[in-house]
């Protein structure tokens, strides 16, 4: 089988994020990193491969500016066999729908049996790319998957839900977005890092993948950001000093009760 992992370059977690009021977009300058959730997707692919299911190839796929090559290097250091970089000025300003469409077009050229991705990106936090991609590819999709077993062309997955988890069986090809509870990503070895640059990397422009120009970029996006507002200031919390534990418990219960939370 062939697995494609969608990966994204995001601002480093330590960087304070900033919205630019002129472009109404997130300022993505500064220190960047491979989206942490995507490292779990790659690890999940590696575990399928190492678990005995024959996997011919793991391909890391990204859409992003030139600098996104760094995220791809990290992805191949973590185990992907090669990578594909969709990079084109025409893609700038794409919203979730446009991004999902463009990624789906690239994935069509790869024809994978399984598409894995992190359930959310550290910057956009939309949680939706997996579903959009699956819709375009006409593949079944699961989100927030925290356990996954592959056998006989099927996947058995546990999907995190508010009340616990669902166990779902799904036919491949499929698109699965994973949560960070699914595994502990490995630390790449030095040789894997040093070998990353030697693994094949295809850079593709919009035209190479048959992506229609009017469905991407700011113009091709169906959402328009009208205004930005700072989130409301959080109220200062109430600190309960734990002097007598029984009393503390009572205070917490009373506090929750007042707000009808229990």
């Amino acid at each position, binding site marked *: 089988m062939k697995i494609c992992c969608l990966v994204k370059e995001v601002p480093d977690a330590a960087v304070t994020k*900033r919205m*630019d009021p*002129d472009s109404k977009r997130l300022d993505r300058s500064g220190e960047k990193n491979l989206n942490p959730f995507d490292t779990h997707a790659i690890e999940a692919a590696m575990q399928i491969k190492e678990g005995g299911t024959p996997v011919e190839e793991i391909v890391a796929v990204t859409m992003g500016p030139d600098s996104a090559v760094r995220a791809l*290097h990290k992805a191949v250091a973590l185990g992907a066999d090669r990578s594909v970089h969709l990079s084109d000025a025409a893609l700038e300003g794409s919203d979730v729908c446009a991004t999902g469409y463009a990624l789906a077009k690239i994935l069509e050229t790869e024809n994978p049996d399984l598409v894995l991705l992190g359930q959310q990106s550290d910057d956009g936090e939309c949680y939706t790319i997996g579903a959009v991609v699956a819709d375009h590819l006409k593949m079944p999709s699961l989100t927030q998957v925290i356990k996954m077993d592959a056998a006989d062309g099927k996947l058995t997955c546990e999907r995190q839900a508010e009340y616990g988890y669902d166990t779902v069986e799904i036919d491949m090809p499929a698109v699965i977005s994973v949560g960070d509870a699914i595994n502990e990503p490995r630390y790449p070895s*030095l040789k894997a*890092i*040093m070998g990353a640059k030697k693994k094949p990397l295809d850079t593709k422009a919009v035209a190479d993948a048959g992506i229609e120009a009017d469905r991407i970029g700011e113009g091709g996006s169906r959402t328009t950001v009208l205004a930005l507002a*700072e*989130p409301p200031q959080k109220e200062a919390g109430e600190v309960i000093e734990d002097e007598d534990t029984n009393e503390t418990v009572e205070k917490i219960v009373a506090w929750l009760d007042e707000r009808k939370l229990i």
Partner: protein
Amino acid sequence: MRQNGRMAITSVRKPKANPLDFLEIDSRLSDEERLIRDNVRAYAQEKILPRVPDWFEQGTFDSRGVAREMGQLEVLGMHLSGYGCAGASAVSYGLTCMELEAVDSGLRSLVSVQGSLAMFAIWQYGSDEQKERWLPGMASGELIGCFGLTEADAGSDPAAMRTRARRDGDDWVINGSKLWITNGSVADVAVIWAQTDDGIRGFLVEKETPGFSAIDIHGKLSLRASVTSELVLDDVRVPAASQLPEASSLGAPLSCLNEARFGIIFGAAGAARACFEEALSYSGEREVFDKPLSGFQLTQQKFVEMALEVNKASLLALHLGRMKDEGTLAPEHVSFGKLSNTVAAIGVARTARTILGANGVSLEYPVMRHANNLESVLTYEGTAEIHTLVVGAALTGQQAYR
């Protein structure tokens, strides 16, 4: 304008110095160097650091376990090529030492002794058979090596060593003892330097060889999370094939030390950085006289002095690393770096210690552990005085050792 500490709406991102990388030294590293550095940092901080205080308190170290872990990361002998070694650049090796020593000098010592002293000695001066026999296992961390040069009465002046190897038929018989040997009692192979009728030679002595024994040194107040031993060689008989064929003088062990010192230049900067960062975060939260400790002029002066030293030490390390990769690094440069960065790091550790007050003397914080460790780092691999003499000789053309 900052909201929730994470997100803000502002027209411009103003260039602003990052307290943790004031001079933007990271921007001078290649993508690959950063990937390597970040990976070692993540592993060392997440997997090793939580275990260090206990080791330090008990004066023990899981040398075998840690060697295997380092072997999996492929950092043992990483700057060497072939025989299972990664063949990384000098800068990548240095950055690795920096991250390891930011956790503990004992951790970096294990990796330095393994890669730069024991493996380098075999790689540079060994026969093909010796390289095949030892290097792959040492690179993977399955086998541990140590490097025995220092003796009770020969430290700064290793030429005064008393350990002797004499020819007996096809064999060598070695007698003597070595003191202060890192990894000594856990090593599968000891690189032993001894006097012979033809000058100083190196020998590979296997752990189980009759007459060879190792006794751990206890009661160290520094590098407690590191094994240090005395090696005793009592009529130790080794075959001719265990002599390092290409090592023909004291220059050989000194060249190995030069490799390890290079790692210390980066490592000391890492320990200093760790102390600085700890003090910085501590003082932002610690309130004295109703405001954060970091808001007082006296404290800020300490931070500025520490930041100057940490940034200069890192710049110096990187500069010397680039010179090593270009092939222009002379031993005097290494002495300059080792001297400058170990002295700077000790100063930073002591200053950081004061900022933590009483907590500064506790093992719950890393600062005094680093300060204590750095006392060893100042002394081993050539003392600060000896490196002063090396640089002095290079500046004036006059040797002042004797």
